[in-house]
């Protein structure tokens, strides 16, 4: 490991190709979606929220994982750090992409309509929190905070490549950062998703939202890590042991999500309170119930069983394939989370749901690839790098 140099760990040229394809695909999809926005404005905003929540999960989950790995150390964090960093540096773009949601509030949230609030005592009670002005102020605050943390962490990490040596500032930001991250993401989940049904509430929701973002991020990171492992330099670092660790982490997140989701279900089902149980009544009605079953099987049972296999976790290509399935399931789960608020009676898929999501993911992926280039794929200046990569000991 003595020849660890920045030059040796550059992003492969394939990244360029992905960037171009993603940008082209995303651009076309968004242009088509804009046509849809003219035809059916309300549907456009609803589909946009779905696509946005799904896409944002990846950089936000990466921000959480980045801070966790600065605090805990370990080989998995070392080999994924640059992927995580490239992902969190897309947060300014995600802040920009939030603007349409702020513009389309009245198409999305019942509580923005004064005439509905006037007849609804629950919405009146919540009005000091759920009102358009405060909603936007909060969003600005969240993105300000997340972007600041993301840019500071990646800036110092870049400096470390040149200077080497331990940078205590990374931990100094990550410690309190993870706290602020947890609180803001909880409130954001209330603002953006929970308040779609402004009468419903569940105290575990923020935690569940956080873990689901972590799961999205980890699946994406595994996919990227597999992709990068095909270059000769990285293949020496990204051994089966590394993928084994990442696979175990993925299993943990799959189980954690299922644990939290089941806890929420059991408690709400058991109490059967009218203001809470509607959430599950809608989602077990008509065709929605089949989506519920699909999420249980595809989001939990299937990956859970496969991830128990040691060989699968150590084979990067298979693990990456599973990561793709999990990302697909993450989209379905987000769909299950968001869309029943708009189409409670019957599940149906609007073409805009898919188009906008494709557009946002494409745009985001292009930004990610752009961020990935230009820096070494490993934090070459980190003094713990060699120790973390010394195989078999950690």
């Amino acid at each position: 490991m003595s020849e660890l140099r920045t030059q040796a760990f550059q992003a492969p040229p394939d990244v360029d190709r992905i960037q171009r394809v993603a940008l082209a695909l995303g651009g076309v999809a968004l242009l088509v979606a804009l046509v849809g926005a003219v035809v059916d404005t309300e549907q456009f905003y609803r589909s946009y929220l779905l696509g946005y929540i799904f896409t944002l999960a990846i950089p936000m989950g990466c921000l959480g994982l980045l801070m966790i790995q600065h605090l805990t150390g370990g080989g998995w964090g070392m080999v994924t750090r640059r992927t995580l960093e490239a992902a969190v540096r897309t947060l300014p773009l995600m802040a920009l992409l939030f603007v349409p949601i702020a513009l389309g509030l009245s198409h999305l949230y019942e509580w923005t309509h004064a005439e509905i609030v006037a007849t609804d005592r629950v919405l009146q009670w919540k009005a000091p929190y759920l009102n358009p002005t405060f909603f936007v102020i909060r969003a600005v605050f969240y993105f300000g905070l997340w972007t600041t943390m993301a840019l500071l962490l990646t800036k110092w990490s870049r400096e470390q490549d040149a200077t080497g040596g331990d940078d205590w500032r990374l931990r100094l930001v990550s410690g309190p950062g993870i706290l602020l991250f947890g609180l803001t993401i909880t409130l954001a989940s209330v603002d953006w998703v929970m308040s779609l049904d402004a009468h419903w509430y569940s105290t575990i929701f923020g935690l569940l939202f956080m873990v689901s973002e972590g799961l999205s991020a980890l699946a994406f990171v595994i996919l990227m890590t597999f992709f990068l492992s095909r270059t000769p330099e990285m293949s020496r670092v990204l051994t089966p042991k590394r993928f084994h660790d990442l696979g175990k982490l993925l299993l943990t997140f799959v189980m954690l999500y299922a644990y939290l989701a089941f806890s929420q279900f059991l408690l709400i089902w058991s109490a059967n309170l009218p203001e809470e149980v509607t959430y599950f009544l809608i989602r077990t009605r008509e065709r929605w119930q089949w989506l519920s079953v699909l999420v249980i099987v595809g989001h939990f049972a299937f990956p859970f069983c496969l991830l128990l296999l040691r060989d699968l976790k150590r084979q990067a290509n298979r693990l990456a394939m599973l990561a793709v399935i999990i990302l697909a399931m993450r989209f379905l789960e987000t769909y299950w989370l968001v869309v029943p608020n708009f189409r409670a009676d019957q599940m149906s898929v609007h073409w805009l749901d898919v188009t906008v999501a494709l557009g946002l993911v494409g745009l985001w992926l292009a930004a990610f690839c752009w961020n990935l280039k230009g820096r070494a794929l490993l934090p070459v200046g980190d003094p713990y790098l060699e120790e973390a990569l010394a195989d078999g000991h950690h």
Partner: protein
Amino acid sequence: MLEKAKHADPPETRFIAPGHTFGSVTEKISSAVLTKRTPVSWFIGFAVGFALLQALALGVTWILVRGVGLWGLNQPVGWGFAIINFVWWIGIGHAGTLISAILLLLNQKWRMSISRAAEAMTIFAVMCAAMFPLFHTGRPWLAAYWLLPYPNTMSLWPNFRSPLVWDVFAVSTYFTVSLVFWYTGLIPDLASLRDRAKHRLLQIAYGVLSLGWRGSARDWQRYELASLLLAGLSTPLVLSVHTVVSFDFATSLIPGWHATIFPPYFVAGAIYAGFAMVLTLMIPLRRIYGFEDFVTMRHLENMAKVMLATGLIVFYGYQMEAFFAWYSANPYEWFMMKNRWTGPYAYLYWTLIFCNGVAPQALWFKKIRTTPLLLFGICMFVNVGMWIERFIIVPTSLSRDFMPSSWGIYHGTRWDWMVFVGTMGLFLTCFYLFIRVLPMLSIFEVRTLSTSAVAKEESGHA
């Protein structure tokens, strides 16, 4: 699986003081058991524990004679000290399981020096916890009939939809697996004691207990497989037991009990309380028995960090409860929260916030994490805070529920306190007996951290 000490480690980050060999480790830990000179502090501690145990005996006897009416329970507060103490003790046990199971699966070698005492703590804590459900039944000799599954021809009981029945399964599984895990880990050390004991009776006793362990390669291979399997079995228990305990409350409709955050928040609280108790026990022990070489500052610091992390999750739970009490727009939820802040138990609520939320923030500072006395102080706050947390949850909600006409106030009676303090006596008595007759640190695991093990590994690499 037995991760070797890494030679790349600089000395200050090792989990054992430098210079220790296989021999010196075995000698140091086993001599605490085999010595004829019991430290004076042991007698003092045991006497205190044994005296408190008498309170349990007295309290339980009188409760069996006169009935559980001696406790402060009445309308409207039908759950009180018994469930509070039960949850408190069960929670404490979780650190032992986390250390021995999850940290083993995660290859965290620092667990080796503290796992034995922590596992013992788990077992004794579960025993103490079991006292409350057992004696709250009034006539425990009938409890088997009420709680254990039997051909349910009457379709009356047990009610399998009740989390109280799940508790019986969860806790009894937990106790069994913990005990088997702990004993399996003891076997190689019992054999060491057998080999080192001078007295014939001790040789026989430890010989029988060590189940014919010879230390052959095959013995070790089977041992390691068994440990790994038991660790895998125990891992879900770290989550499941306290999740089921949280269901006792959360499946109900009582404001302050019915919250979906309860399962993860209870589990985090359990680990938080457990690590506080492990530190409460280990900080004096390492000093008295001179085990600072094995339970190093780095151990204390790591445990403090786990406490900080889990404590923050618990604090997050408090904040969620408060925020959603308002956000729910449910007048009963919101009243529950205001009642906690300003009602008759408000002084306890704010003590709780200080003990569990404010005081542990000191653990952000390395200086405090590495000063045993200060760390011990923080742990005491957490021990108290976690008890108060359960008090805030249980009687505060019950004493003022939906109908103001049936409000009431609850306090533990002297019999409540006597039984609670008595279980502390049971715990201390068991723990003091444990450190006197069994090695309180795992001899063979600490050996793998020693300089000899490092040297052996290096020669193996060459």
